[in-house]
């Protein structure tokens, strides 16, 4: 019998204590708040009162002394200040400790609390006046908007129940219950869902019914099964117009959906439940670190599934802790920076399109990117070279790597090994994403996006390697289908397939390749690309076929597959097939196409290896302080126009230039610069089209080794090059010319589907040449070495023209040309494209067997040469092959 009373006592104590922390911190801010005081007093009072029934003397003694202090405050005999409240908070902690012990062992832990009790008693009785008169320091941390009372224990949910009168309580459920499931099964009590406060609309109808979470979970499980069965039935009658089951199944369908929503609702809890501890956490932190921090919380009533709520509780606490510890500066530093001494951590939650967005924002110092890099280098996460070539955004994402704490001193509060890596892992595990934005000096914002529920998700069913898979809709951005004739638009950059989707390079990977399945798609098939989002990045998953979307019930993967990161679960389709649910983050990580440090590094290193020469680069500022670069050879001219000469036609800027109108564009994205007069302009030309890029200032021209890293995130940026040991974004001139002349880019119809083989060891030029040729309508095959090119030719691939670099490792262009001619392709037009110059180079090329010799970068001349060569050679080539 005592067991049950004990269980009930533990359950209600945890409920009340959950609320208590925010209340006490709130009291510190508003020492005069009688309501708060009364509520706090009552919680302690109740605990103490109940202790007597169960014989918990140690706990009772601590609660008693704390109650005495609170009683004095309530009666106005003692001021609530930091001095008087701190011991009460200590007592609350001790009470929690004792309750934990009690819960775990069933016995009250033996503790000597005489010191704490004496200090409480001193405050309550003897020197209270002296203490109360002591200078009251400004409230350290305050909670501006306290979360709604976290009324239920994590293990139970409260459900509003209509008209449940306070009937004689029926015998509670099974007495034996192990674990933390504290409340008895489906017990009815006359408990109000909210604590004190508004006395309005109190009625019996407000009553809630307390249900063990296990029951709700089972309910959810069964609804899941029902959804599956419904899907099966729907599948059966699909296509049968006249089925006699159609009507009842439609009804079943609707009822199932309603039921699913209703059950889902019972699992919903306000996010405030996960927040209730935070004011206390921040308050304690502020005190320890001598900072002043205001924690503002909005959207605490935003509801989400209990399982999701549980999953984000710890990450949230960690991030708020981080903001308070690492983000907010000390009052002195803030004052010096011209900011208010009181720092603010803002927590905001809201619904957005089936997701819950949680923002944690602080107005602190922001993240010192250099220090992040430095730390990452120290910890061996990256090399110095990596650090140098990283963009700010990439460096910021280092925060999410294991073992990186950027506070100069590892404080006792945050430097405890649980890092942002764990935070990210936990959030991604439930299908959420974390984004981080930071501005030096003005603060950091972390934005978390999580699904409302995990139990039933909408998913796209696809086929790869002959097997069906489900991809959660959450991660899917769009579907792209390429007709077989458009296959050539898939380019290869350094052995990685990419696709230029609306001017961004989208890395591609075959689902069958990632999963190691046999490839079932043929080269002639259309290409289905599922564009998925992982964090900031997107990539394309090539699948054999795309089927329907279905509401699927997520079942956990079995033990054997748990360690395979590619799958997030299993489900049963309407037709009864059991299929795997893909984890897109896992897929991205496994093929290393995006984001992943290693892959980027690999590409960079390999790039270094095969890039021997240097390139002239034009360095300019896109905005004061931000350098960008472009290969000089792609630049037609540098001009300066007085601002008065720049005209606006429609939504475009143009300037009179050499008898024509030159369209002007600003640099896109974060780089948009400020207006300067005269306006420096970098003019690019491609074909007959020119455009001017408005920059902030022209800086320099230098010879640098180009190390291009592929990246797909920003439009108009081709990659990153290391210039003066700094990562500098390289402009994609092609993109801007296209932007300025949209009508021009509409691909020329395949009037001349001539095939060109491009041989160049440099990714950058390979891509440049390929793009230029493709825009002219050629079919291009690009390879990174002469040997591979010979293999292509040997393998029977027919080309109308071959364009080759001269300086290549393994086999030079000279050797390559000789080999081509020796193998009998006497008439195959061979064009040497090189950065080498000089008459003797040219004659050497001719002797080796090249037909033409072109300097790199002059796209116009190059294209004209290719065109020339092909038309000259066509009759001859036909004869030769005959």
């Amino acid at each position, binding site marked *: *019998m005592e067991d*049950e*009373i*004990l269980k*009930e*006592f533990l*359950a*209600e104590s945890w409920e009340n204590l959950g609320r208590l922390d925010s209340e006490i911190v709130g009291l510190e801010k508003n020492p005069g708040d009688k309501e708060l005081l009364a*509520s706090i*007093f*009552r919680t302690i*009072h*109740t605990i*103490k*009162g*109940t*202790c*007597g*029934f*169960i014989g918990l003397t140690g706990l009772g003694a601590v609660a008693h002394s704390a*109650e*005495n202090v609170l*009683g004095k405050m309530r009666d106005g005999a003692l001021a609530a200040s930091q001095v008087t409240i701190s011991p009460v908070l200590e007592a609350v902690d001790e009470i929690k400790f004792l309750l934990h012990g009690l819960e775990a062992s069933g016995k009250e832990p033996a503790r000597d609390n005489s010191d704490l009790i004496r200090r409480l008693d001193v405050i309550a009785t003897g020197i209270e006046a002296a203490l109360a008169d002591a200078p009251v320091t400004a409230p350290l941390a305050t909670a501006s908007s306290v979360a709604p009372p976290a009324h239920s224990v994590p293990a139970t949910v409260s459900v509003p129940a209509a008209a449940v*009168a*306070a*009937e*004689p*309580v029926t015998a509670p459920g099974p007495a034996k219950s192990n674990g933390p499931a504290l409340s008895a099964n489906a017990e009815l*009590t*006359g*408990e*109000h869902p909210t*604590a*004190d406060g508004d*006395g309005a609309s*109190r*009625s*019996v109808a407000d009553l809630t019914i307390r249900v063990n979470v296990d029951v709700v979970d089972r309910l959810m499980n069964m609804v899941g099964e029902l959804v599956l069965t419904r899907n099966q039935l729907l599948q059966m009658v699909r296509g049968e117009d006249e089925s006699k089951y159609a009507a009842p199944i439609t009804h079943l369908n609707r009822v199932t959906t309603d039921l699913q929503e209703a059950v889902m609702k019972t699992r919903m809890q306000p996010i405030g439940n996960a927040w209730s501890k935070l004011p206390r956490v921040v308050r304690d932190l502020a005190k320890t670190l001598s900072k002043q921090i205001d924690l503002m919380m909005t959207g605490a009533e935003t509801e989400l599934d209990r399982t999701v709520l549980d999953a984000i509780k710890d990450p949230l606490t960690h991030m708020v802790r981080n903001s308070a510890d690492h983000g907010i500066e000390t009052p002195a530093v803030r004052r010096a920076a011209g900011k208010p001494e009181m720092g603010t951590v803002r927590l905001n939650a809201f619904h957005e399109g089936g997701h819950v967005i949680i923002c944690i924002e602080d107005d602190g110092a922001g993240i010192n990117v250099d220090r992040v890099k430095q730390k990452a280098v120290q910890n061996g996460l990256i090399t110095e070279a990596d650090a140098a070539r990283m963009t700010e955004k990439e460096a910021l994402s280092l925060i999410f790597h294991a073992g990186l704490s950027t506070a100069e001193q590892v404080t006792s509060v945050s430097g405890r090994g649980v890092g942002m890596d764990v935070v990210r892992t936990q959030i991604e595990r439930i299908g959420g994403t974390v984004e981080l934005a930071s501005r030096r000096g003005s603060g950091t914002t972390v934005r978390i996006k999580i699904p409302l529920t995990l139990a039933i998700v909408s998913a796209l069913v696809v086929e790869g390697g002959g097997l069906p898979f489900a991809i959660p809709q959450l991660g899917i951005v769009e579907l792209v289908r390429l007709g077989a004739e458009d296959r050539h638009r898939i380019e290869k950059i350094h052995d990685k397939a990419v696709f230029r989707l609306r001017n961004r390079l989208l890395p591609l990977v075959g689902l069958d390749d990632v999963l190691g399945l046999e490839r079932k798609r043929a080269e002639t098939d259309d290409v289905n690309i599922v564009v998925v989002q992982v964090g900031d990045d997107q990539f394309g998953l090539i699948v054999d076929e795309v089927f329907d979307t279905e509401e699927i019930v997520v079942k956990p993967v079995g033990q054997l597959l748990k360690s395979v990161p590619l799958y997030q679960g299993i489900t049963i389709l309407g037709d009864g097939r059991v299929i795997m649910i893909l984890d897109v983050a896992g897929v991205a990580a496994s093929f290393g196409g995006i984001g992943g440090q290693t892959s980027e590094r690999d590409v960079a290193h390999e790039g270094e290896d095969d890039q021997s020469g240097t390139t002239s680069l034009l360095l300019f500022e896109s905005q004061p302080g931000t350098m960008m670069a472009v290969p000089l050879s792609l630049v037609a001219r540098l001009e300066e126009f007085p601002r008065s000469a720049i005209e606006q036609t429609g939504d475009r800027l143009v300037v009179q230039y050499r008898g024509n109108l030159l369209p002007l564009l600003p640099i896109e994205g974060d780089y948009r610069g400020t207006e300067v007069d005269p306006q420096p302009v970098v003019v690019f030309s491609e074909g007959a089209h020119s455009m001017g890029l408005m920059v902030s200032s022209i800086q320099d021209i230098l010879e640098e080794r180009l190390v291009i890293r592929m990246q797909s995130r920003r439009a108009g940026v081709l990659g990153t090059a290391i210039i003066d040991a700094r990562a500098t974004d390289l402009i994609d001139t092609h993109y801007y010319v296209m932007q300025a002349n949209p009508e021009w880019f509409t691909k020329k119809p395949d009037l001349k589907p001539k095939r060109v083989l491009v041989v160049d060891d440099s990714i950058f030029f390979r891509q440049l040449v390929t793009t230029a040729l493709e825009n002219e309508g050629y079919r291009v095959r690009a390879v990174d070495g002469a040997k591979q090119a010979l293999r292509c030719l040997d393998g029977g691939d027919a080309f109308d023209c071959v364009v080759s670099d001269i300086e290549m490792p393994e086999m030079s262009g000279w050797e390559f040309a000789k080999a081509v001619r020796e193998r009998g392709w006497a008439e195959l037009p061979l064009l040497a494209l090189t950065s080498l110059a000089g008459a003797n180079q040219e004659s050497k090329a001719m002797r080796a067997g090249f037909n033409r010799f072109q300097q790199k970068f002059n796209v116009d001349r190059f294209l004209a040469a290719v065109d020339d060569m092909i038309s000259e050679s066509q009759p001859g080539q036909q004869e030769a092959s005959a």
Partner: protein
Amino acid sequence: MKTVLLVDDSRAVRLAGKRIFESLGFGTLEAGDGQQALDVVASHPTIDAVLLDWNMPVMNGLDFLKTLRSQAVAQPVVVMCTTENDIAHITEALTAGANEYVMKPFTEDIIREKLQETGVL
């Protein structure tokens, strides 16, 4: 069977009280605060006794008692439950119409004694 209404914001205390009253042969009703208790009284006119906690959210024991005594309903015996912190105010409760008072933690013996004194048993 006689009926007692247990009014306390602590479920644990209500459960303890319920055990005692059941063992004394009572049927029990419960309420978590004064307002709920008023609702229960309104719908159950045959309550013999109320075990009433003092300090509760929404409506405390004293306010409940005052309201109850001012209503034209069958008046049950009210035993006020207190702790040493409220003992100073006990006369206030008695003036307001409480028939008896007990200190927490109460035992079956004490409850029986109080019920006998007030004539419920």
